[in-house]
C-alpha cells in the first residue's frame, strides 16, 4: 500500500500500468500529504487560469479521466485499480462496471459506522442531484458513487479505458476539505457553501470519528486485496 503520494505519482503509476497490456488486476491506495487541485480531462483549457488563482503551494494538474475538479489533500484517500480487458468486474456494461467499487467503499464505511450507500441508477431523468455544481466532482452524483443517508457525497469515481486495460479511480472524503480553496481557484467562490451542503465526510459519523486517513487507506487496501486477490 502506498502511504503518501502526489497526484503526479498517482497518474504516473496508472499511466505506466496502462502503457502495456494489463495481465492481472493491480491497485494502489493513496494518501495526499498536501493540498492539490486536479481538473478533469475536459477541464484542460482551464488549467492555466486555475493555476494562476490557486493559493501559493497548491499545484494544479489535469487527470486523464473525466468528471469535475477535485481538491485532494490530507482529507482524502484515493484508490487506483487497473483491470485487464475482459475481467469479471467489467461485465455488464460501462455504468455497471462502477458498481463493485462503489459497493466496496460503501460497505467499508458501513462497517465503520458511516450510514453510507451507493447511488443506484434510476430511470431516465430522475438521477440528477438537485442543483448540482457541475464543474466539481463532489458537486454532482453519478451511478454507484457513495453518499451518506442524506445524499451527501462521500466517494467519487472515474475511469479510463484503454485497449490494454481499464483503470478506475476513487476518492473518499475522510474529513471535510476547505471547499473555498477549490471554488476560489475555479473562479466560483459562491459555490463553496453549496459544496459544503452537498458533501459529507466519514469522520462526521460518531462511530468513525476516530478513524484517520491512514487507517481508511489500510482498510481500503485490505478490501481491494480480497476483492481482486
Amino acid at each position: 500500500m502506498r502511504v503518501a503520494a502526489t497526484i503526479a505519482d498517482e497518474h504516473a503509476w496508472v499511466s505506466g500500468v496502462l502503457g502495456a497490456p494489463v495481465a492481472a488486476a493491480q491497485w494502489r491506495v493513496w494518501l495526499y500529504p498536501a493540498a492539490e487541485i486536479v481538473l478533469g480531462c475536459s477541464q484542460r483549457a482551464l488549467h492555466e487560469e486555475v493555476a494562476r488563482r490557486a493559493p501559493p503551494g497548491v499545484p494544479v494538474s489535469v487527470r486523464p479521466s473525466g468528471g469535475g475538479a477535485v481538491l485532494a489533500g490530507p482529507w482524502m484517500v484515493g484508490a487506483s485499480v487497473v483491470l485487464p480487458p475482459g475481467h469479471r468486474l467489467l461485465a455488464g456494461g460501462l455504468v455497471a462496471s462502477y458498481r463493485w467499487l462503489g459497493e466496496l467503499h460503501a460497505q467499508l464505511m458501513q462497517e465503520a459506522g458511516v450510514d453510507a450507500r451507493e447511488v443506484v441508477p434510476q430511470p431516465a431523468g430522475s438521477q440528477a442531484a438537485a442543483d448540482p455544481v457541475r464543474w466539481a466532482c463532489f458537486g454532482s452524483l453519478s451511478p454507484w458513487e457513495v453518499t451518506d443517508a442524506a445524499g451527501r457525497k462521500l466517494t467519487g469515481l472515474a475511469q479510463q479505458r484503454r485497449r490494454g486495460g481499464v483503470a478506475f479511480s476513487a476518492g473518499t472524503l475522510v474529513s471535510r476539505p476547505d471547499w473555498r480553496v477549490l471554488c476560489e481557484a475555479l473562479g466560483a467562490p459562491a459555490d463553496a457553501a453549496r459544496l459544503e451542503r452537498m458533501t459529507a465526510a466519514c469522520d462526521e459519523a460518531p462511530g468513525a470519528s476516530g478513524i484517520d486517513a491512514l487507517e481508511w487507506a489500510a482498510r481500503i487496501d485490505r478490501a481491494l486485496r480480497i476483492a481482486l486477490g
Partner: protein
Amino acid sequence: MTAITLDDAVWKDVEEGTEALVDRWLVAEGEPVRAGQPLVSVVLVKTTFEVTAPADGVLERILVAAGETFARGAPIGTLRESR
C-alpha cells in the same frame, strides 16, 4: 470513407439521452494513421475512452470538435482507408 464512432457496446447501460464529450483529438485532419492507433479521447459517464482507427488510412474529417458532445451512434470523424 469509414465513419469513426464510439463503439456501440459501451453505450449498453448508459441512460438514454446521455451524450459523450470529445475531450481532444490526438490526430489532425489529413494525417495518416494506422489501424488501432488512438485517434481521439472521449468522455462518457466519467469514463475516458480512446477511439482507435478501424483501419490504415488518413483522418479525413473531424465531425465533432474538442469540447463538443455527440449522441450514441453519431460519427465523430471520417477515415479514408488506404488501398
